[in-house]
């Protein structure tokens, strides 16, 4: 009995060794012969279920559109693009395991980022460890750029704190008696949502505009009546909401119930959503929102993107899709210029190229500082005459800035 057990163990060990040896050989074989017509495997982990599933799916469409449009034109370096998308369930532990798998066992030639700061930071750390170029569509909070990442690039016009720069400039240029004097801030407890509101807050406070309410609420908040009561009782001239979508709508409805009428109201996220007008009873006139993307923007590649995206998915792209597509454009520009797409030394060359160059994308020309932070600001859109239009900066405006805001 005992000897037979030992024999089995020996056999198992021998078998395992053989398999390992074979595995190592075949691994070598693959690595050595990267044929030029092999597809380029692009590894991505996205929150397809869980808290970020809605924007996660938007980002997925953007990547799929990029792969299809690029492949239809003959691919990159003559190789087809193949996406490998894993679902991280909006979970930061999961996203780390996903990128380990994509880089380690799937041997992805390139990796690109997931959605939202909370997932981008852990994912970028993995990419950094393996020396991979890491362009990402959705990590806009300042935490992303203070981690010392050298391979990370945010593929959008501006980080969260700079979203409102054009609005801050506009307000501070107003004569002193016309400027709003008091502001109420309400932001979701989320680095991105808070970043947008606090970027504006810092600039306005520095200019002496008083903060009278500063509220932070957890992401699962559904009842905004108490926050609204505080804002309404402060009678602030201006309201700034660091919101995603539904929280912004809920806050506005709660404020309408209390009949609070600010002279200016700005929300990140919510007002650009197609459902927004109906959700707040069509009383949208004058509501502001920073936006990193508009299907109407006049950048050369944007027209092609909007056309082909609409043909593929039956609707126009919005910001999530556009940022994912932009991510693809940045990676593609680097790959084309450097002439390689694989793990190893090639990645360093790609990183260096992106650091040193400006890339034309669907959200305009992008360039980055040493931390991977894009050097721009968002356009400011406002609901004017029942439509959301670009009002700032002057150079690209579609309508005049409405101030003060009509009652809602």
């Amino acid at each position, binding site marked *: 009995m005992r000897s037979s057990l030992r024999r089995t163990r020996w056999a198992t060990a021998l078998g395992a060794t053989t398999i390992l040896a074979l595995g190592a050989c075949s691994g070598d074989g693959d690595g050595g012969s990267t044929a030029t017509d092999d597809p380029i495997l692009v590894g991505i982990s996205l929150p397809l*279920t*869980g808290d970020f*599933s*809605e924007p996660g799916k938007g980002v997925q469409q953007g990547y799929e559109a990029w792969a299809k449009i690029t492949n239809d034109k003959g691919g990159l370096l003559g190789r087809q693009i193949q996406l490998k998308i894993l679902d991280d369930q909006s979970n930061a532990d999961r996203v780390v395991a996903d990128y380990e798998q994509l880089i380690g066992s799937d041997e992805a030639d390139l990796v690109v980022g997931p959605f939202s700061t909370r997932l981008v930071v852990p994912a970028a750390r993995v990419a950094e460890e393996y020396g991979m170029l890491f362009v990402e569509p959705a990590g806009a909070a300042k935490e992303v750029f203070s981690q010392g990442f050298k391979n990370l690039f945010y593929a959008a016009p501006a980080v969260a704190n700079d979203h409102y720069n054009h609005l801050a400039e506009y307000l501070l240029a107003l004569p002193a008696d016309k400027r709003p004097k008091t502001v109420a801030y309400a932001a979701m*407890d989320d680095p991105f949502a808070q970043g947008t509101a606090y970027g504006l807050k810092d600039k306005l406070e520095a200019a002496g505009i008083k903060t009278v309410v500063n*509220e*932070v*609420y*957890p992401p*699962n*908040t*559904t*009842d905004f*009546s*108490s*926050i609204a*009561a*505080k804002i*309404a*009782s402060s009678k602030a001239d201006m309201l700034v909401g660091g919101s995603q*979508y*539904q929280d912004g*709508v*809920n806050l506005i*409805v*709660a404020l*309408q*119930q*209390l*009949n609070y009428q600010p002279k200016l109201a700005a929300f990140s996220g919510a007002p650009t959503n197609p459902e927004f007008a*109906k*959700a*707040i*009873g069509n*009383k949208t006139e004058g509501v502001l929102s920073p936006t990193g993307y508009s299907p109407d923007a006049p950048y050369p590649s944007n027209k092609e993107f909007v056309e082909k995206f609409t043909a593929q998915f039956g609707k126009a792209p919005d910001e999530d899709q556009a940022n994912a597509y932009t991510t693809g454009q940045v990676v593609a520009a680097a790959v084309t210029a450097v002439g390689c797409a694989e793990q190893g030394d090639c990645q360093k060359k790609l990183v260096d190229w992106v650091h040193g160059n400006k890339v034309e994308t669907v959200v305009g020309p992008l360039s980055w500082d040493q931390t991977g932070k894009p050097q721009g600001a968002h356009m400011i859109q406002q609901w004017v005459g029942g439509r959301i239009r670009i009002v700032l900066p002057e150079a690209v405006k579609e309508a005049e800035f409405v101030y003060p805001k009509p009652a809602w």
Partner: protein
Amino acid sequence: MPSGALLFQSVILGLLLGGLYALLAAGLTLYFGIMRVVMIAHSAFLILAAYLAWWTHTRLGIDPLLSMIVTVPLFFGAGVLLQRGLLSRLRAITLTMMSVLLTFAVALIIEGLLGYAFTGTQRRIQLGYGSAGLQVFGARIAVVKLIAFGLAVLALAALYLLMKKTTFGWALRATIQHRDAARLVGIDTERVAGYGFGLGLATAAIGGTALSLDTTIYPSLHWHWIGPLMAIIVVGGLGSVPGAAAAAVLLGLIQSLLQIPLGTTWAQTIFYLALFATLAFRPQGFFGGRLAQRF
């Protein structure tokens, strides 16, 4: 220091919120009273009712309140079936613990089915009077909140009358107070327990509809509700409907007032602080709660 107007506004919001909490907690405490069952799925049924109200409104275009014509009897039936078919089959000795597992599973099934049918997108009923409000002594009361509060008060009053004035109510209370004694005087406690369970779930149908009028709903929202509701019924004394109602109004009010100095995130902790304090100093609960002492 917050202004008087803000305090008054917060008191009103707190009372309106407390009224809703009272109705939502009433069902939960009823189950415990009837058969020492911890019904984790109560808030999942709540969200289910809210979804049905939302669906009625968006798909059929009629007022969400009308959905109760269907959901209240439906939930009553579902409650009877749940009690007769599943919970009454659990072994008495491990009933409380196993009921947590069983109803946890039911909650997950409901959440999963809601996600499958309606996706994870947050939904909100868009009513013509959704943003309307009334001016009362300098405070504003939203019409939808008033309707929700009115529903809660009506449902609680109906429950109270049912428990106090009808033969079924007497039988139900007898079953809650002493099951063996109730059986000795000829009450069919099994049947009464089933109906009592149905009654609890019927309150979830009303509560869910009231909830849907003024908040966003999504399939996993019920986890957000079950914690505060459990805390309320413990503070109120397990099994005591008036206790749950009193604790709900009180905690709702405190939560609303605490939001002024502490903000939304920390104000939520009042439920758990109250829960710890109750368990540490008065485990039987602060109102009624003779049952929990024995438990």
